[in-house]
């Protein structure tokens, strides 16, 4: 399945744009997404940390992704 991944902050710089499309197996999890992205964009591994958000919630690594989920990469936040 194809998942659109939104990017913010430094993740936008790493992906070279505000969103990318990732092709994943049907029952892929958040962890699968992370390892696929880290292979394609090794700079992700250099970040202090980063989270995946699914439908506007921080997601655990084992959570299943669905094609129509709104998925985003959340690098370390620095608001305020």
């Amino acid at each position, binding site marked *: 399945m194809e998942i659109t991944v939104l990017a*913010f902050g430094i993740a936008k710089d790493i992906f070279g744009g505000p969103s990318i499309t990732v092709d994943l197996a049907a029952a892929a999890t958040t962890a699968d997404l992370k390892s696929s992205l880290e292979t394609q964009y090794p700079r992700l591994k250099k970040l*202090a940390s980063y989270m995946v*958000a699914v439908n*506007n*919630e921080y997601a655990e690594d084992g959570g299943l992704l669905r094609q129509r989920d709104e998925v985003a990469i959340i*690098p*370390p936040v*620095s*608001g305020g």
Partner: protein
Amino acid sequence: MQTQIEIHSEPLNTQQCIDWIMSPESGGIDVFIGTVRNATKGRTVLKLEFEAYKPMAIKEMRTITKEVLEQWPVQRILIHHRVGTLQIGEIPVIIAVSAAHRDAAFEACRYIIDTLKQTVPIWKKEFFDDGEVWVAAHP
């Protein structure tokens, strides 16, 4: 309404925030105003840029206000955050809390800004005369 959470691309209005948070039941209001500092770790900062994942940022801020209402006897809570390019001295964030008694207002206000900095998906980039950096991105 008990809470007001907003993200603005225009300058924040401190007086409007104070007017909204005051009520006849309040014994005090606590207001935190974040401002853009002209230096970080000894380097001169020229300006900041703030970016938000808006729907999730609003949701996370709502979660914070819910937690506050469960923990402290406060009356109203306001969080306004700015996005876009900010010059030195401009205001990225205003947090205001009203309560019958000051302890709750102080503690809740502190909790909100501390938690916001840890959980709300908003990012700031610092601009120096010789480069730019996303704050906290790297260890």
